[in-house]
């Protein structure tokens, strides 16, 4: 996982170094996969930006100065952990824009997991040790980004290949309907050799009351569906209900 992060960073340096001054090699941007499970708040990579208490993968809540202020964020009832949301730094994105390296800017624009806009958060225990992190697709993207957000599940599985993923597909619930002839309602989990676990929840469906076409007027409705993926990675011994 860490090796993959280093490779990603190396890729940026290589791409930018082609057209940029020497200072480009000093640029690197950590992401959520660079977080170190089992290490303290002060040992985590950074800097990230806009640290704030998380809301179970939703929009950020109260702003905090950094990971070391984890105790200011309330403990989650489900995991017993303190969630701190953050966003990625945009220095590389704008460096690439200034150098007219649009593909690099697109790749490093915003807070993304692969190419998917996401909300990321770190999960700390009461003693400030990182016990997990959370990656949830961000519904605030463009219509197209939202439509394909569920595909982050495929990317997430590819990031954790060291363990065997176990998945279960649920049938549609009452009032839920497919998008055209397609729906995904899948819950997956895997355990890695070190005992860390990953959980993945993927959804692509119309929820009750949602439809592509208004049943009364016949007008097309845009964005009335759920297309989401939610990834949680936990340190060994963490992640189950507490």
């Amino acid at each position: 996982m860490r090796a993959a992060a280093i490779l990603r960073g190396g890729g940026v340096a290589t791409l930018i170094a082609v057209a940029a001054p020497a200072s480009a090699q000093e640029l690197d941007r950590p992401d959520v996969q660079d977080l170190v499970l089992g290490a303290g708040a002060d040992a985590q990579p950074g800097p990230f930006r806009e640290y704030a208490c998380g809301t179970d993968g939703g929009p950020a809540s109260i702003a905090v100065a950094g990971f070391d202020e984890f105790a200011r964020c309330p403990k989650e009832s489900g995991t017993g952990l303190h969630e701190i949301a953050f966003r990625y730094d945009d220095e590389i994105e704008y460096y690439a824009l200034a150098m007219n390296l649009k593909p690099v800017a697109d790749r490093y624009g915003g807070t993304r997991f692969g190419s998917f806009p996401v909300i990321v958060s770190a999960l700390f225990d009461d003693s400030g040790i990182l016990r997990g992190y959370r990656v949830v697709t961000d519904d605030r993207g463009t219509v197209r980004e939202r439509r394909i957000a569920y595909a982050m599940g495929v990317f997430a599985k590819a990031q954790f290949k060291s363990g065997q993923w176990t998945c279960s597909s649920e049938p549609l619930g009452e009032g839920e309907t497919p998008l055209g002839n397609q729906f995904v309602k899948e819950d997956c989990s895997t355990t890695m050799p070190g005992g860390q676990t990953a959980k993945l929840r993927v959804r692509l469906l119309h929820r009750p009351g949602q439809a592509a076409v208004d049943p009364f007027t016949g007008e097309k409705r845009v964005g009335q569906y759920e297309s989401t993926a939610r990834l949680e990675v936990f340190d060994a011994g963490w992640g189950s209900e507490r």
Partner: protein
Amino acid sequence: MRRALIVIAMLFLAASAPLAEDGTARAAFLAGTSNDCPGCDLSRANLTYRDLSGANLEGANLTKARLHRAVLAKANLRHAVLAGANLNLTDLRFADLSNADLSGALLYGANLSAAVLPHARLIDARTQHATLARADMSGVDWSGGDATEARLPGAILTGATLTNIHAPQADFRRVEFSGADLTGGTFFETVFSGADFSGARLRDADFRQARFENADLTNADLSNSQFQQAWTQGIVLDGSIRDNVVGLRIPTK
């Protein structure tokens, strides 16, 4: 002999005193306890996101420094060397950059509204989407720069050198270009409405689909430039040189 040694020691101390002073100021500046560091060597320093409003950095060496999203509003950067520095998205409103060297600097999306930059060097600077409204840029050397979609309404560029600048879709409304040299520039769809080009050189430039409404080109040299589909209502061309100009529609009086 002893007297000679004392003299040498005193000379050494006198020479090293400014260095020590500079080192102290630099350490305090980098530690964030001070915002002033005139004349300091801050090359390659990481100052991203730093609030340096009103800082005194006159004559400082900030070559290739990282200042992404830094706030430098009203800062004193006279004679500072910012060559190759990363100033993307910086706030430089009302900053004094007189005679500063910004060659090759990255200023994407930076805000330099009402900044003072007379005789600054902006050679090959990358100022795409930057805002320089009402900035004083008289005598600057901005040759070879990229100013795509930059906004400079009301800026002063008298006597400036903008040779081979790339500035498509930029906004130069009411800019004073008198005596400036825009030779070889690319200004596709750029807005020059109400600009003053009197006595300026606009040779070998691309002004296709640019807007020149009510611009003053008195005594300007437009030789070999392209003006296809440019908007020229109210343009003043008295005494202008127009050898081999392509596509320029001269309005009837």
